[in-house]
């Protein structure tokens, strides 16, 4: 292969990748950029970066005054973190029981959980709402946390079971000989070895929870329990004509995700690719 041909080929590859990277990023940049401009500048020159003359924070100040974005953010954070912790802890416990012990309903229980990977939990919404009404959990964060744990468990158990098989039996038996109880073996020997798999599960579980609109809309639409996603949706719907506020609200919802993503992107992408191979 001649050098000229190979460099032409790599140039084409870079060209295609750069083009799609531009397509992926441009809309985000456009929104965030215009959020910092005055109303006139947004319409007069939407493609221009904010300059000292056009720079304006009016959108952000009105969003922070009118919306309860602090509450929404706390709700989203609490729900996501607790649901994530629950999914991983309960999922790991169940995966441990299924891989470590032989008991009568082992295979059936495993299949029972696997079924949940294929059936979307949304289809049970009619029944879920009925149960939440009966237990008066509507408009509580608990309702959402329970739903998200149930939603995440099948996949978590599936991935963790795969990893659980790789933990050496000698290690666990050595622990038993040293007088550790089954619970201590799980906590002190198995959990630390599972950390990479748990990161993988966390990635798969976290994004859909944080971004979900369906269940917050149906189970917890109250002002006190709105998540950031639902809050932004309602706020933007109400202020459609106030472009500064809409752009600022969008930027405020994009930036935390973006910051988190840039911090964790390495581990996140590794989690997805390793989860895929498994």
């Amino acid at each position, binding site marked *: *292969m001649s050098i000229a041909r190979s460099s032409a080929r790599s140039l084409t*590859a870079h060209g*295609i*990748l750069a083009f*799609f*990277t531009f*397509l*992926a*990023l441009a*809309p*985000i940049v*456009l*929104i965030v950029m215009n959020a910092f401009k005055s109303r006139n500048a947004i*319409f007069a020159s939407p*493609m221009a970066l904010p300059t000292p003359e056009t720079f304006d924070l009016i959108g952000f100040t009105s969003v922070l005054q009118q919306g309860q974005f602090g509450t929404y953010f706390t709700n989203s954070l609490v729900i996501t973190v607790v649901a994530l912790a*629950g999914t991983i802890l309960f999922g790991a*416990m*169940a995966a441990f*029981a299924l891989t470590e*012990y032989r008991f009568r309903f082992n295979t059936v*229980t495993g299949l029972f*959980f696997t079924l*949940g990977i*294929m*059936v979307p*939990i*949304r*289809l*049970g*919404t*009619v*029944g879920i709402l009925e*149960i939440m009404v009966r237990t008066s959990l509507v408009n509580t964060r608990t309702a959402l946390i*329970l739903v998200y744990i*149930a939603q995440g*468990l*099948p996949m978590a158990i599936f991935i963790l079971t795969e990893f659980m098989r790789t933990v050496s*039996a000698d290690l666990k*038996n050595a622990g*038993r*000989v040293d007088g550790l109880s089954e*619970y201590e073996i*799980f906590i002190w020997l198995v959990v630390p070895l599972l950390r990479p798999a748990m990161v993988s599960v966390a990635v798969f579980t976290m994004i859909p929870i*944080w*971004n979900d*609109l*369906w269940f917050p809309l149906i189970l917890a639409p109250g002002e006190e329990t709105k998540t950031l*996603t639902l809050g932004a*949706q309602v706020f*933007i719907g109400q202020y459609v004509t106030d472009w500064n506020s809409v*752009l600022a609200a*969008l930027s405020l*919802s994009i930036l935390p*995700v973006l910051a988190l993503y840039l911090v964790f*992107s390495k581990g996140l*992408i590794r989690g*997805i*690719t390793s989860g*895929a*191979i498994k």
Partner: protein
Amino acid sequence: MTSAAIRALAHKQAPAEQRPWRWHIAVFLAPALLIYTAVMVVPLVETLRLSFFQNAGQQPIFVGLANFNTLLRDERWAEHFWNALYNNTYFFAIHLLVMVPLAILLAALLSLPRMRGSGFYRTALFMPTMLSFVIVGFVWKLILSPLWGITPDLLDAVGLRSLFAPYLGREEYALTTLGFISVWQWFGIPMMLSYAAMLSIPDEILEAAEIDGIVGIAQFFKIKLPLLWPTIGVIAILTFVSNFNSFDLIYTAQGTLAGPNFSTDILGTLLYRTFFGAQLQLRDPHMGAAIATMMLIIILGVVCAYLFFVQRKLVRYQL
């Protein structure tokens, strides 16, 4: 050490019948089983059950398959149901025909040996997937808005001004536009899955191909693609399940009525409208349950068909 090994062995091999009831197994399983059963399985079964009932005055009465008959045949319902099913299939087809090939192309380029900056491209290309439907829906609504004028200006710059239309507001374009927006948001996931699959192809195979003079595009079609079919199958089925279950993007961009004139109505929005009611429509949990049951049948039917007919025929090479 030896006694330890023997005891360990004894522990492992003792037959199940002779053991006392092992509480720890129940303790380990209980939380997951309880939450999963109570919040997912029971409501799903309850939804199936509700679809066989209808409200008559105070008491729900058993009506057998009447709800399904109404849904599939009755004038007021059938039109909406078949429309939503058709739109949903079209929505899925866009993903299959645009997103999957694009994802594979980008993954192939990213996994090229000595590709500089592939880490940067990977991170940037995956970014839209992190955003919520709400953000994605509104961002594109603003960009495509004739009011703001970004899209007409851009088309003007390349001399295609005449192609501009309010894409989300026209019946003939709206669903296609939403399909492309959804592709924009989601192509990161199939890209990563194909990328991972391509990285797992051993270098020896590719080197052997190079020695035989199979390089570049020929190498992709003759070596990498055949090894990739199982992954593509998984991607297709994951896309199918998530498409036939989607709701958020259309709800955000077009509202409950999935306008204009129901041209973007898919099963998820129809379910929401039926279950919760909308303008000019009363809420009807039983018909909602019937729609959910139909969705369940469609999703499970296709997944099972895939597992039995496609999955088994895919050739898997031992690498």
